[in-house]
């Protein structure tokens, strides 16, 4: 039971396309940096491009050289066909050792074959099958060592056909992806669970062996541990459902669903439940988004990232049960306070630096850092999420989408006189005009389109991007904290896009707002072209900027935050603009509607067969049982 015996060396030669989040589809929430599996062949190629072009293909977090230039990486290394898992193929394969020991002498080929086995020995990893079929020819009378000759079938067996996934329909192919992914997830999660379980068992045994323990105490330790493990297993196999929770309030709403503050029936525990409408997700191709969000939230133990407790689904919705952060978000704070002092700005920006760094270390690029996604916990400290639902559920990777926006016409009449924020020289005196923008801010946040204000230009110019795009976003947020609006805000998103792309001309610090030289310098060092951007070599570059002089990053999360939420209960939603959010429970409405459309019949469907896209529930022990 040595936990170190558990290996999860994903076979190098498996079809890589489906290993991780569907890398072809966009997500606004942190994306795994696993290289786009080019061998996938089943994925639509169209959207894949930006990934290949933009990702540093490996090693961002695997290596510690945060400080080095880790992002030259426009080059695509297809060396890692099985996204993200380093190629340890072969070395731990129990098969290889064994296989060599056998020789055979049937069909007269025994001698040759024996030799071949031996010769194959040293190099026999699992075959790399970037090309598709998983076989290396090494049968027959070829002399060893054998170069791969493609597929050679043994006469004893059915011939190995040329793989042809195209012969099947779209459903089969999309099920293929799910299947492949879920199978990989199953083993990955199972191994992780087993490993953690072993660890707990070891801890328990240590306690049991302590001679100071009384027999009663030992019995108690044993039974408590057993119950906890059992409860976790029961929790894993039990389907959760929304009916198990009471809605307290709707705290966020968007085109894809809503976020509610809920309380679990029974134990009264409080959560934030995000429900996403499946049909919308399908339409907008957001599966990858959910997928990667699940990945990062589930895998991180970071205090900087919102915890995900579990995910589940019914016929209409996908639910994500998350940690409820009562402090609200930075957007709400900014709407309330308009600007922050430099000290307060320093605190939040420093915390966001750490949060972004944590996300990067997990191997994800957030790509959509913005005030709506920066939440404040009970103590007023920062956590990242994609809570807002708005959150650019749009296709961040879809070049066409952005090209259209960039070329398209502004959808508002040019001659409108009402708001002149298109002119960049906003001053304090005409600041009231910004209030129009601010008022529309939240509406924007909840729309499908989301706000592009904080997105780095390289993301939608389509020339590839990498980790440092998050530092651009940080720069724009810092600007907003100090100035009162984001640097490229405009009357509509088209103009914002244009401004961002032309940031050299449009980045402008208002005359009447005095920023410290260091603050302005830091903003300018992040809101700039990627080649010169601070943070490109790692978060430490930003941390050591003069603006942060004196900040002790290591203890930041432990000091008192400038704003600590004052709460009256664990379901206090003071810091959420609940009065601005329509409290109609669309989920319930939609469901009722759907049932009505089916002539009063609830959808009769076998839950497993209809597994729409997640098909599986992630649950972790730590979050739920510790």
């Amino acid at each position, binding site marked *: 039971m040595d936990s170190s015996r558990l290996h999860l060396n994903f076979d190098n030669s*498996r*079809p890589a396309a489906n290993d991780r989040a569907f890398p072809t589809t966009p997500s606004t929430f942190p994306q795994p940096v696993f290289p786009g599996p080019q061998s996938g062949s089943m994925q639509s190629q169209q959207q894949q491009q930006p990934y290949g072009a933009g990702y540093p293909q490996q090693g961002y977090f695997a290596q510690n050289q945060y400080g080095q230039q880790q992002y030259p990486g426009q080059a695509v290394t297809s060396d890692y066909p099985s996204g993200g898992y380093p190629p340890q193929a072969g070395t731990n394969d129990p098969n290889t050792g064994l296989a060599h020991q056998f020789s055979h002498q049937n069909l007269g080929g025994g001698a040759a074959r024996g030799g071949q086995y031996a010769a194959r020995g040293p190099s026999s990893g699992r075959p790399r099958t970037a090309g598709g079929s998983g076989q290396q020819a090494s049968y027959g009378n070829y002399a060893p060592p054998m170069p791969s000759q493609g597929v050679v079938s043994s006469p004893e067996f059915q011939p190995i056909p040329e793989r042809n996934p195209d012969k099947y*329909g*779209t459903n089969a192919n999309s099920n293929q992806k799910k299947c492949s992914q879920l199978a990989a997830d199953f083993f990955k999660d199972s191994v992780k669970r087993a490993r953690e379980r072993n660890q707990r068992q070891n801890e328990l045994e240590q306690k049991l062996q302590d001679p100071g323990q009384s027999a009663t105490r030992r019995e108690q330790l044993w039974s408590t541990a*057993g119950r906890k493990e059992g409860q976790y297993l029961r929790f894993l196999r039990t389907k959760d459902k929304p009916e198990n929770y009471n809605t307290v309030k709707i705290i966020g709403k968007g085109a894809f669903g809503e976020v509610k503050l809920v309380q679990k029936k029974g134990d009264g525990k409080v959560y934030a439940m995000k429900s996403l409408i499946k049909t919308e997700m399908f339409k907008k191709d957001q599966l990858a988004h959910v997928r990667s969000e699940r990945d990062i939230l589930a895998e991180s133990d970071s205090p900087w990232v919102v915890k995900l407790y579990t995910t589940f689904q019914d016929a209409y919705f996908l639910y994500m049960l998350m940690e409820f952060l009562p402090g609200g978000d930075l957007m709400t704070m900014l709407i309330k306070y308009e600007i922050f002092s430099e000290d307060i700005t320093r605190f939040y920006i420093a915390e966001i630096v750490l949060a972004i760094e944590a996300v990067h270390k997990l191997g994800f690029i957030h790509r959509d850092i913005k005030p709506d996604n920066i939440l404040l916990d009970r103590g007023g400290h920062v956590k990242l999420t994609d809570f807002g639902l708005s959150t650019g559920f749009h296709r961040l990777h879809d070049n066409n989408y952005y090209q259209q926006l960039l070329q398209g016409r502004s959808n508002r009449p040019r001659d409108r006189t009402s708001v002149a924020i298109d002119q960049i020289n906003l001053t304090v005196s005409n600041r009231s005009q910004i209030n129009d923008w601010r008022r529309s801010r939240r509406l924007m946040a909840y729309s499908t389109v989301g706000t592009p204000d904080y997105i780095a230009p390289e993301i939608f110019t389509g020339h590839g991007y990498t980790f440092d795009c998050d530092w651009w976003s940080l720069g724009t947020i810092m600007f907003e904290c100090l100035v009162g609006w984001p640097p490229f805000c405009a009357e509509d998103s088209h103009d914002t896009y244009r401004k961002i792309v032309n940031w050299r001309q449009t980045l402008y610090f208002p005359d009447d707002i005095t920023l410290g030289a260091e603050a302005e310098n830091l903003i300018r060092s992040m809101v700039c072209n990627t080649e010169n951007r601070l943070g490109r070599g790692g978060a430490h570059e930003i941390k050591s900027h003069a603006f942060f002089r004196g900040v002790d990053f290591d203890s930041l999360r432990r000091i008192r935050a400038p704003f600590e939420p004052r709460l009256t209960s664990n379901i206090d939603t003071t810091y959420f603009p609940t009065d601005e959010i329509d409290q109609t429970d669309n989920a319930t409405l939609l469901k009722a509607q759907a049932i009505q459309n089916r002539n009063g019949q609830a959808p009769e469907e*076998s839950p497993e067969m209809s597994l729409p896209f997640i098909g599986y529930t992630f649950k972790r022990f730590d979050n739920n049982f510790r």
Partner: protein
Amino acid sequence: MSNLFSGIKAQIRGTSAKAGTPVKSPTTPTAESPASSLAPASVSASASASSLHRPAVADRHPSTSSPVPRVSLPESRSHGQSIDVVPTVLDIPRPLPLWLNTACAKHIVKGNFMTLSARPKTVDPGEWVAHQVVEHYRNLWNFVRVLHEKEEDGSSICNPSTCPKMSAGKNHSYTWLNRNHEPVELPAYEYMTLMQRWMSGKIDDPALFPTDPDTVGFALHPEYTSNALQQQQGGEDWLGARSGFPKQLGSTCQLIFRQIFRVYAHLYWDHFVEPFYHLNLEKQLNSCFSHFILTATTLDMLQPAELEPMQYLIDLWAADGTFPPESRPYAYANVERGRYIQSLGTSA
């Protein structure tokens, strides 16, 4: 179709033992001892009771009328082993199915997965079995979905013309029991639909698989659990008794494991190439199935004789190290035969 829900019956074609052991219906799990009667293989392979640790090489010759040509080849020899060994006979027609070709018997995961199957020491045995049943059921349906879910035009990969019967090779097909407890042959598609409903009906039934966290128990420990508790449990004890599971948990889980096995067997015999190989899923299938076999045998949910339709693959996996020597399926395998099969294959 609902009148067909009542049961499942195994039937072996091409054997004289067709009318053999009555087969238990999943809905009547207490009818007989679950271990003995449910495997299709048990119908004719009673001889293999003696072969628990090494199933007889050819313990089940098809009847004389069988059109199946048998090929006998001399057994392979390992280094340092005696030459006097029984010849290895593969009792299935050539060409051999692709999944017996080592090149296609590979996995997406490597390493020793016994830890994933073995019950953690503190966990109540019933809870563990329930957990495993659900996990393997979920895994299985990932694969079934691929060939079962219909396309827009209403077609599915597994359909009555590709699979008029729920078969697993030439020698096995499975039937449902209809309302009158008569075996009915169904297209595999229908069979799997019914099976899915039957299984999810069980797994989602809180009376059978309780969901209340408060009734969860723990495993007794000879040293750490007080005698009173142990004795108190002594009288009424069954799998899961201490965690609020009903008496039939064990037999129900055996039935579910058996059904899962049947579906896997069908997937291998009739769908390995179409669609799994073509869709690049054969390694995933292998990994999930081998893990299933490991779990089912470790937890005594499948008996050696029941493995028959897939015995050769188990042999192969014992030989190639998928099943470590200390594992149950290894003990149930004919490793020599596995090596022989290995030697036939396209090495990769």
